[in-house]
């Protein structure tokens, strides 16, 4: 039988995307459409004394202006995206969710205060300037570490402090282990904020049709089904009265998983209120203020080791900056906890997470979602330990890896899905050796590195293994149907933002039904086609939706075989599905096309047998008991320009183990994108706030994202350890590429500047910051 899974097949969706035929939210253009613009706060923290919209209402072309006040009883805070872990004892969690429009006071720069709806976006934007607001500026909580000072101003006046959450997790007995440690290393590690900077900003179009009492919403969301459910609930409609379409989207990366942004509630509400279609497209500046950000954390970290370099324990107390609200619960800091012991067997672990409110845009996961911070922490500590113990950095890692016989390996803490974290499977050592071999680790350390340095080059090498918890539940579903034309239609509730779902999911179906991938039409993220699901996040598409599609396709295969066996008068075991036909294996002339079979399964006369269903269609769901844990190794060789301190990546090697590979071409692309993002996180992208929480680089002129020129040729190799938790054996890979890069950058830079004893405890870096760190080393060696 022909194989489809694992084949390097070109993407089904590319012709449409490349010829401009794909629908994006901004392409939606409806008769009578109105345009919304939001008035956003220039202040990070200020009381709203008065808002006067009368002049704006007088501007020709303005249809309506709303503030929280004018919304009256229909104003209510947004629903929480993720609730706090119910399974943990002694947890403090104060849920404060985002508001559709600010009321009483503003809590971050960019918080929407009023919305203008007008005949054009130009008029709407002009009318924003007609709105007069009297602010009373308040003291600002800008610094994550000062947020808990007793004198700090309060982001939420009804709370005693800016503490949003506090939680402790323990494995083993860290304090007891500390008394037995030969070496204790203690460091403060800081990671700062960045933006996801997707190519497409957010956008929403809502169209309420009064005659059919039906609302259609086009939304750049990663979670179309939950958005539909939330919008229906907010507007008092049945779920069936609301259709949410997440069409083609120019990049998600996490922030589009944040559910019920103010605009996501306001635009549908306005359409119902005004009885006309309403459109809002975020501009790039708004994106810097109104779309979630991530990564700022400060860790006081400690590692315990024996003289042989064996890890005895890891502990870290850390602050996580949630921004002005905390709708995404503890997902990010819990992910950090899940990854702060990396790929290593760590017998004792202690972690204390403290989440604080600040007057900044609220946070939600961005590709990696707390994992890069965890990996950065453990890998930094290990590099410092290796130096202190005189062990090679690669060697100290090999000594601590979770051995293959230890799987399933219990971390004994809970993860972001509030379940006990278990690494389902893995075989780490050979994958690391594969990466070391490919980059020429030994050879670089012994010969090439010293030779290049002798010639005056500043070169360094790094190699970092990492784990990634992927594919969490609760579930996804899919429907697979064979059409009388012989084409197969597939619908699933997850949205797609460039992951190649139209192809990789089609391959799963093709494998079962023997239909060319180009004959499989997939619909993702349209609640009219499939209305159960949670969304595209946590590297779960290939695992959860993939296995739901596999389950549906398997049922359809069963139906095909049963009916064909009857019609061809041959036992099911002798039938094979290939090229859109069911054939009797030994008598290929005895065959029927899948299309004809589908027509036979839906007769116009006669009777459908009791207990059967018409057509060749099936709907099935998949919900994993727990997530699958992927593994990978990144290695690189860099050269640093001694004058500018710009880093040139000479070679970049990735060995990725995400279980069964559906399409290596697409997977390589995912990894490339992740690495590019990780490079941004390491050496380019940082959101700079001043002491009043004003963002100082809210444009692509000042916020640097690496371009094609800065991204090296990335060599990707695959190592396959299938997950035992799902029939396909898949593990997620969407976020993998970004996770180890900051740790890798730090290691390679330290290797390059080993002569001055450079130590890196922060991310992101930049040439400027590296210069400062080197100056510090030179002035106080």
């Amino acid at each position, binding site marked *: 039988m022909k194989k489809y899974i694992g084949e390097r097949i070109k993407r089904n969706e590319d012709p449409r995307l490349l010829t401009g035929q794909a629908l994006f939210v901004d392409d939606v253009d409806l008769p009578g459409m109105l345009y919304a613009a939001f008035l956003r706060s220039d202040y990070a923290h200020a009381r709203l004394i008065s808002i006067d919209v009368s002049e704006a209402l007088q501007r020709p072309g303005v249809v309506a202006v709303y503030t929280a006040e004018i919304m009256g009883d229909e104003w209510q805070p947004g629903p929480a995206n993720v609730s706090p872990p119910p399974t943990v004892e002694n947890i403090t969690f104060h849920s404060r969710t985002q508001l559709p429009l600010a009321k009483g006071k503003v809590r971050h720069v960019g918080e929407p205060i009023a919305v203008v709806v007008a005949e054009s976006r130009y008029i709407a934007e002009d009318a924003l300037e007609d709105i007069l607001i009297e602010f009373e500026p308040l003291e600002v909580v800008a610094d994550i570490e000062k947020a808990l000072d007793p004198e700090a101003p309060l982001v939420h006046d009804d709370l005693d402090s800016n503490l949003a959450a506090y939680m402790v997790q323990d494995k083993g007995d860290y304090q007891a282990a500390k008394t037995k440690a030969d070496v204790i290393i203690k460091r403060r590690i800081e990671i700062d904020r960045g933006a996801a900077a997707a190519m497409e900003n957010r956008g929403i179009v809502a169209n309420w049709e009064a005659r059919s009492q039906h609302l259609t919403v086009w939304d750049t969301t990663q979670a179309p089904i939950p958005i539909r459910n939330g919008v229906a609930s907010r507007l008092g409609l049945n779920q069936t009265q609301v259709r949410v379409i997440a069409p083609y989207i120019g990049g998600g990366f996490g922030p589009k998983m944040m559910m019920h942004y103010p605009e996501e509630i306001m635009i549908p509400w306005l359409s119902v209120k005004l009885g006309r279609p309403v459109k809002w497209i975020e501009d790039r500046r708004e994106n810097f203020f109104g779309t979630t950000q991530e990564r700022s954390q400060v860790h006081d970290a400690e590692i315990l080791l024996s003289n042989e370099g064996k890890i005895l324990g890891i502990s870290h107390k850390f602050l996580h900056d949630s921004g002005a609200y905390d709708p995404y619960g503890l997902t990010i800091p819990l992910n950090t906890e899940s990854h702060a012991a990396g790929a290593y067997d760590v017998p004792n672990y202690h972690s204390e997470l403290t989440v604080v409110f600040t007057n900044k845009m609220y946070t939600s996961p961005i590709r990696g979602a707390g994992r890069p911070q965890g990996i950065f922490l453990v890998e930094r500590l290990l590099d410092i330990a290796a130096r202190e113990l005189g062990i090679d950095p690669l060697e100290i890692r090999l000594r601590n890896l979770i051995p293959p016989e230890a799987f399933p390996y219990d971390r004994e803490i809970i993860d972001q899905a509030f379940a006990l974290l278990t690494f389902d499977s893995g075989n780490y050592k050979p994958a690391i050796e594969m990466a070391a071999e490919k980059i020429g680790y030994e050879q670089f350390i012994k010969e090439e590195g010293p030779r290049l340095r002798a010639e005056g080059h500043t070169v360094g090498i790094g190699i970092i293994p990492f784990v990634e918890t992927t594919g969490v539940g609760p579930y996804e579903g899919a429907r697979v149907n064979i059409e009388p034309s012989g084409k197969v239609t597939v619908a699933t509730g997850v949205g797609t933002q460039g992951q190649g779902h139209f192809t990789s999911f089609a391959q799963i179906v093709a494998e079962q039904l023997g239909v060319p991938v180009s004959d499989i039409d997939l619909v993702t993220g349209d609640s009219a086609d499939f209305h159960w699901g949670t969304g595209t996040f946590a590297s779960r598409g290939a695992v959860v939706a993939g296995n739901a599609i596999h389950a549906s396709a398997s049922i359809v295969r069963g139906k095909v075989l049963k009916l064909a066996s009857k019609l061809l008068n041959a036992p099911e075991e002798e039938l094979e599905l290939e090229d859109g036909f069911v054939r009797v294996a030994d008598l290929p002339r005895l065959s029927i096309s899948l299309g004809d079979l589908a027509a036979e399964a839906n007769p116009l006369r006669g009777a459908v047998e009791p207990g059967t269903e018409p057509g060749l269609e099936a709907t099935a769901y998949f919900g994993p008991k727990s997530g699958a844990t992927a593994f990978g190794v990144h290695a690189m060789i860099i050269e640093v320009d001694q004058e500018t301190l710009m880093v040139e990546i000479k070679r970049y090697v990735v060995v990725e183990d995400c279980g069964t590979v559906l399409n290596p071409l697409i997977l390589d692309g995912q990894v490339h994108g992740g690495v590019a993002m990780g490079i941004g996180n390491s050496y380019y992208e940082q959101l700079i706030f001043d002491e009043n929480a004003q963002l*100082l680089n809210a444009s692509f002129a000042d916020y640097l994202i690496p371009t094609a020129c800065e991204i090296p040729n990335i060599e990707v190799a695959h190592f396959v350890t299938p997950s035992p938790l799902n029939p396909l054996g898949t593990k997620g890979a969407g976020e993998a590429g970004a996770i180890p890069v900051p740790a890798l950058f730090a290691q390679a830079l330290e290797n390059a500047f080993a002569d001055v004893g450079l130590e890196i405890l922060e991310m992101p870096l930049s040439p400027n910051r590296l210069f400062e760190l080197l100056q510090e080393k030179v002035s106080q060696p």
Partner: protein
Amino acid sequence: MKIEGEYLFDGPREVVWEIVRDPDILATALPGTQSLEKISENEYQGEMQVRIGPVGGLFSGRVVISDEIPPESLTMTVEGKGKPGFVKGTGFIKLSPAENSKTQMQYQGDLEVGGRLASVGQRMMDSVSKSLLKQGLDSLNQALLARVSSAESGEVVDYEAPSEAQFAASVAKDMASDALASRKVWWIGAAVVLLIIILVIVILSQG
């Protein structure tokens, strides 16, 4: 943003004080000021056109003078708001007599800037504000010289405040020299020269 510096006025302290406290002169000397009215002894209200890089617009604001010790020192509280954002800050000015009946001004201020001015104009903020301050103080000094020389000669010497265009040109010049001072962007200068040569050639060839 912190602002700190010194300036040497070519005239005696009492006259400098008079000028600093004269809203009409202040209005002409502060670049972009469209109006500045005295609404009470220590309070001024006015409008000012501000442009920092790509961000520009009209600010309306209030200046309050406090802790005044004539002719020695004063504290100035500024609050401005407009389309491009807001500015809020306090400044402390101290005048001390210097040699040759000159006056040394020391100033320090803390400025909070928000909105588009902060988020998009940041890159230019430092050099533009330094330049604006320098131009403003130079203008005040010109006004001072005019006043001193009329007092000496008994004739009225007109002080002509620089136009907004002159201010803009000076700011641009300051920023360019800032940029050119750094070795890494020498090519900007080269590019400008090249551009001018190309333009000249184009114009000549059309003529």
